[in-house]
């Protein structure tokens, strides 16, 4: 290891240093972060897990009411738009909270693992309206509490969550010969069955066949959602009767039970190919695009020995010397970059400037959003636009003020304008910037999640976006920081002599701070 332990630990296995935070000094410090008792309550979903279940049930009731109403089309569209706006606002608050969580948490390794697993079991908030509310809940209740335990438990918890069931169309899958399937003339949807084998467990090209995919989907039938409560449900009347053979093991019977698919999930979790696939993916994510075979062997060995105890697998990774070699071999992905940048700029202990700003903005958001409908500038994206228009829409709403016509400037309400601007800035530095960088929170491009390789993230346009972000962030939060001290505090001994020289010679402080965030070592890990 050529860099000090705390530096490698913070940059490769965490979200970088935050001035005022105690850095991990050894492997035990890192592993302790994964322990349940080390974790503070998660900052999302906003309002808490219990309340979110209620909000989702309310949304479902409203949507049902809307479908059944006698209103004319125009009125229905408008009613739906209001519901969309509310959900979208909540989603924005959640993305902000997720950013805050990662910035503020002293458990960087646990936060990075949460990101890894949420991406491994990808779901997208873009799938449907309720998914805006469900996906943050999914990470909070199905992923995070399970990532320090057995893989089998995590697999079950992710697979059974309504966010997954909706995202991979399991809620639309019916056994073609089941009573329910025949009555509704609907049949099998293979989506979850396929991704379960290809992405979540065994891995692509690991030897399973199309017949296995279809059989797995058959075994999964019956597993669906209760649309009123938006909870998972098992309905035997839509489960395909009979036995279905997946990888040579037969599941099911005349009477179908949840135990059928649970047994299949357990078998898949215990399959050595799953261990190999997951261990390799972890190593690729944390250590190197082409990880050392010995590293993966050590991890799969720990998996085998402990029956898939993830904490033991992480421990084996951290114990292996190559995990601490070749610093900077990986690219910081956009979320990683943004979080690390905000942590670096959030000087001081406790709530530094960044966090104070984001929290303040969060509190103001309700009042702001209430008034926002009237003040929404022409051309500003409505919630549908922001979701579907992707980068373009968010650029308009979050990054520039060019959507703000005269209605935005109301001499009588300077505060509202101020709040709106603050929210725009927060969005421009958070989810808006992440959209433009290609990695918006909870909006992966496909069930396979975000790209992983160095070359995917260090490109010309990516660099341009990162420089733009660095400029904006240092202008917003860099006041009073000396670039030379900033560089030292955020990169420690990872700062190269070249970078130290260039940063200290920058033509002004803001540019100096920007150069520190733009440096190769800040964008590598």
């Amino acid at each position: 290891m050529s860099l000090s332990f705390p530096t490698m630990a913070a940059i490769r296995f965490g979200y970088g240093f935050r001035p005022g935070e105690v850095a991990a000094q050894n492997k035990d410090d890192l592993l302790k972060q994964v322990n349940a008792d080390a974790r503070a309550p998660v900052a999302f979903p906003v309002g808490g897990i219990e309340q979110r279940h209620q909000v989702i049930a309310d949304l479902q009731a409203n949507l049902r009411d809307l479908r059944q109403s006698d209103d004319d089309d125009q009125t229905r569209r408008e009613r739906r738009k209001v519901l969309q706006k509310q959900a979208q606002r909540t989603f924005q608050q959640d993305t902000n909270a997720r950013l805050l969580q990662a910035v503020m948490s002293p458990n960087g390794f646990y936060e990075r693992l949460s990101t890894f697993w949420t991406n491994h079991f990808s779901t997208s908030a873009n799938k449907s309206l309720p998914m805006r509310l469900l996906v943050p809940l999914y990470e909070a209740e199905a992923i995070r509490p399970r990532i320090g335990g057995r893989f089998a438990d995590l697999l079950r918890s992710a697979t059974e969550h309504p966010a997954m069931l909706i995202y991979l169309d399991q809620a639309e899958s019916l056994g073609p010969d089941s009573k329910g399937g025949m009555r509704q003339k609907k049949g099998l949807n293979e989506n979850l069955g396929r991704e379960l084998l290809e992405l979540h467990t065994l891995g692509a090209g690991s030897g399973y066949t199309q017949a296995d995919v279809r059989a797995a989907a058959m075994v999964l039938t019956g597993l669906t959602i209760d649309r009123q409560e938006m909870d998972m449900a098992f309905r035997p009347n839509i489960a395909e009767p009979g036995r279905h053979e997946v990888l040579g093991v037969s599941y099911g019977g005349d009477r179908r039970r949840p135990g059928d698919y649970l047994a299949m999930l357990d078998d898949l979790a215990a399959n050595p190919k799953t261990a190999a696939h997951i261990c390799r993916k972890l190593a690729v994510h944390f250590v190197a695009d082409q990880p050392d075979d010995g590293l993966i062997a050590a991890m799969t060995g720990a998996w085998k020995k402990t029956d898939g105890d993830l904490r033991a697998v992480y421990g084996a990774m951290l114990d292996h010397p190559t995990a601490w070699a070749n610093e900077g071999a990986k690219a910081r992905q956009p979320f990683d970059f943004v979080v690390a940048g905000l942590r670096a700029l959030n000087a001081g202990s406790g709530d530094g400037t960044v966090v104070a700003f984001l929290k303040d903005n969060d509190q103001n958001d309700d009042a702001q959003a209430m008034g926002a409908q009237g003040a929404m500038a022409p051309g500003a994206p409505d919630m549908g636009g922001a979701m579907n228009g992707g980068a373009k829409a968010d650029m308009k709403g979050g990054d520039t003020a060019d959507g703000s016509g005269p209605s935005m400037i109301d001499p009588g309400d300077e505060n509202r304008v101020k709040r709106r601007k603050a929210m725009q800035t927060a969005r421009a530095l958070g989810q808006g910037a992440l959209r433009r960088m290609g990695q918006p929170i909870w909006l992966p491009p496909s069930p396979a999640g975000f790209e992983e390789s160095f070359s995917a993230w260090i490109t010309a346009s990516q660099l341009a976006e990162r420089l733009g972000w660095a400029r904006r962030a240092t202008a917003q939060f860099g006041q009073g920081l000396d670039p030379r001290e900033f560089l030292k505090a955020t990169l420690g001994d990872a700062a190269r002599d070249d970078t130290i020289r260039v940063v200290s010679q920058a033509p002004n402080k803001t540019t100096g701070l920007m150069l520190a965030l733009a440096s190769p070592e800040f964008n590598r890990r």
Partner: protein
Amino acid sequence: MTDFTLSRRGFLASACCLAAAPILTPVTFASMPGDKRFVTIVLRGAMDGLALVQPYGDVGFAAFRPTLALTPETGLIDLDGHFGLHPSAADLMPLWRSRELAFVHAVSTPYRDQRSHFDGQDMLESGGEHVSEEKTGWLNRALAVIPRSDARKAIDVNTSTELILTGPNNVDVWASDSNLGPARDETQFLQRLYAGDPAFAKAMEEATRANSASMVAEPGGPRGQKVADVAALAGNMLKGDYRIASFSITGWDTHVGQIGQFKRPVQDLTEAITTLKSTLGPDIWSKTVVLAMTEFGRTVRENGSGGTDHGTGGCAVLAGGAINGGRILGRWPGLGDHQLLDERDLAPTADVREIAAAMLYRQFDVTVDDLTAKIFPGVTFDKGSQFLRA
């Protein structure tokens, strides 16, 4: 008035709205005739005073700068038979002729020897004798001691409050998004930053070639226009309730290829001054002083890459209808043997803080005691200051 309305739209669209209200009460524009205005422009990155106002009459000058020195034959605009103005500042000549423009040569802050931009700008803006001695900006401290309260309203036209106006006294900040664009002198720093990392160097090269919108603006790109926008914004605020404004112009750190690099920031500065004049109109301009200053000058000799490195003595620019200009002020130390500081820099003969003190004294009746004790601790300034005649 029509023009103003149009430009107001233009900058409202890109400006931060912290101080939206004042600009929306057009009836108050120019409603306080007789009030004086003061604008500071911080030239960040160390402006090469010897390139802006070139001592072509000095025998040694051309030898120090074989590729950079100009003469009236090669485009330099003669000012007084000894000094000449850089051709990119040609649009300032009408002001020079109408005596609304002056240059003060061989000035510096008390900062010596280290030549760090950060520390130099810290001194320039805090007004202290030593680095980090003062934690607030001198222009902010001045706000507290200006006798007439209606003259105190100040605006910082930058993304965030800059040190010069930072402190306990209330200052409004108008962020213009244009400040978020890349500074021209950023490019070379980024190239150096990535020089040792092929993956980043390649990405940077591609981005530069593609001229990505948010990336490196090509020379001749839209940024000059944006500096004019900032100046127009400041001018319009000064037409309203504001009496003091400050903004920055970057791009002066010309270590490499100065002959090309220097043109754009000079055009920016020129445009900033002419825009202020046209925005303010003849009446207010006649009561206005603009002081443009930099953290330090640059080496007398050009370096091996057609640029200049960090030096000491520099040049300050004074403009405005309230200036008795058309002159080069200060005491010229010469470029001969043993006249250079450390055998490399223009030797400073005046403290840039004295110029600022004189302007505060003249424009706002700040007392000599306040100026020398509170605003610029340690500065030499009294009623006999040469800059009171500027």
